[in-house]
């Protein structure tokens, strides 16, 4: 190993690292959006008055919450091509794995969010003649979502970090690209410090943003 901390290698590999970071962001954003939509549907099912529906949703959630994410990633990597009948590529199998996994967590967050909306609001919507669906759509979910924004964002930060697990199926995210450079040029120190700093700054920004939102809602 060469001596000294070589900043040059960091600068030189910026484009390659950025390419990895783009994948990290793509996975994070798709995981959040897909997980949120699917998770909200699951939450609605869990709260449905029809027992079999809430049972199935509950089982799904408990199942995924007891699985390590890395196992789910592996599992979908082999399962999805098998189900679809053709190879789908690492990216899509991993994206689906994240969505399915995150949905279990978002479901519980949204369920708590829905229950945080005062029953009087539900009555008010019903009394105006809104149907169950309209009441959810226009009254309950917007408030549930708003009440849960800080927790949803915290979960998003966790997902952002967890996307680094995609190395197991050979996808080149931020960490993997840094690792490749580190090993190729024998610059482990430089590259892993860079990775740490970037993760730290991004997560810190996210956390500060969450804190600001929390204070904003606390004042209302």
């Amino acid at each position: 190993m060469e001596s000294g901390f070589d900043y040059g290698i960091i600068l030189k590999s910026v484009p390659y690292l950025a390419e990895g970071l783009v994948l990290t962001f793509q996975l994070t954003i798709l995981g959040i959006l897909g997980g949120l939509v699917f998770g909200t549907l699951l939450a609605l099912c869990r709260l449905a008055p029809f027992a079999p529906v809430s049972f199935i949703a509950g089982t799904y959630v408990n199942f995924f919450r007891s699985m390590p994410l890395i196992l789910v990633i592996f599992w979908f990597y082999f399962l999805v091509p098998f189900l679809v009948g053709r190879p789908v590529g690492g990216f899509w199998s991993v994206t689906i794995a994240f969505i399915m996994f995150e949905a279990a967590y978002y479901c519980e967050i949204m369920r708590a969010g829905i229950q945080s909306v005062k029953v009087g609001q539900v009555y008010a919507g019903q009394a105006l003649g809104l149907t169950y669906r309209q009441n959810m759509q226009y009254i309950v979910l917007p408030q549930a979502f708003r009440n849960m924004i800080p927790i949803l964002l915290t979960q998003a930060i966790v997902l952002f970090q967890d996307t680094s697990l995609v190395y197991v199926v050979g996808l080149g995210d931020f960490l993997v690209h840094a690792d490749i450079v580190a090993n190729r040029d024998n610059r482990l120190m430089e590259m892993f410090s860079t990775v740490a700093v970037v993760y730290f700054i991004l997560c810190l920004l996210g956390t500060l943003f969450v804190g600001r939102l929390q204070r904003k809602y606390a004042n209302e």
Partner: protein
Amino acid sequence: MNKTDNTAPSTETTSGVGMIRMNDVSKWYGDFQVLINCTTKVDVGEVVVICGPSGSGKSTLIKVINGLEPFQEGEITFDGISVGDQATNLPKLRSRIGMVFQNFELFPHITIIDNINLAQLKVLGRDQDEATKRSMELLERVGLIDQMDKFPAQLSGGQQQRVAIARGLAMDPAAMLFDEPTSALDPEMINEVLDVMTELALEGMTMMVVTHEMGFARRVAHRVVFMDEGRIEEDCSKDEFFSGERGERAQEFLSKILTH
């Protein structure tokens, strides 16, 4: 007073056309019976005030009328439509009954004008212009047109409750239900809400009002219903009620709230 009886309705409630009819209604929360054989009626244009001690079932009585709470026995009809019937389209029925709550229950995430517009757009199918026009008329009427773009939290309790009344009226309801509309308000705001309600009553709106504001009852009520422990103990004309022809429990209750 009339201990109500299904076969022979009381003389006070046989005149006029029944908008709300409640016949021998019972409701349980688990083992606990909240409503015990309640029978009453509200005619078109009639204002009925409901009073009674805390926990006597007044809110529950109001909520079973538009099906916000289910009931197990008896029958309720609104404008001839059975509320308890499985086949009844409850959202549609509810859209014809305005309801005002103790805690206003404006939707906190949308503006005042949107609060009043929402159900007009989504339930009545009015277009944006039509709905906004109606909402503005009503805001003008309750004296809050200058607040239309604010959010509920920016308004005082009295203002919020007036918006809530406007929101109910925007549906052009056949009757209005009020559940203690002034009891969450600071004393200086009570009158601004009662004034709106008085005006509404004088215009002939059919109203059922849970309240302990006996001044309001004296001014505009046609009938007073007194509830105690899930039962309708008194159901009589305002004059009878205030002239002292009332049972012991009602007497005791009245003397308590009047000395406060």
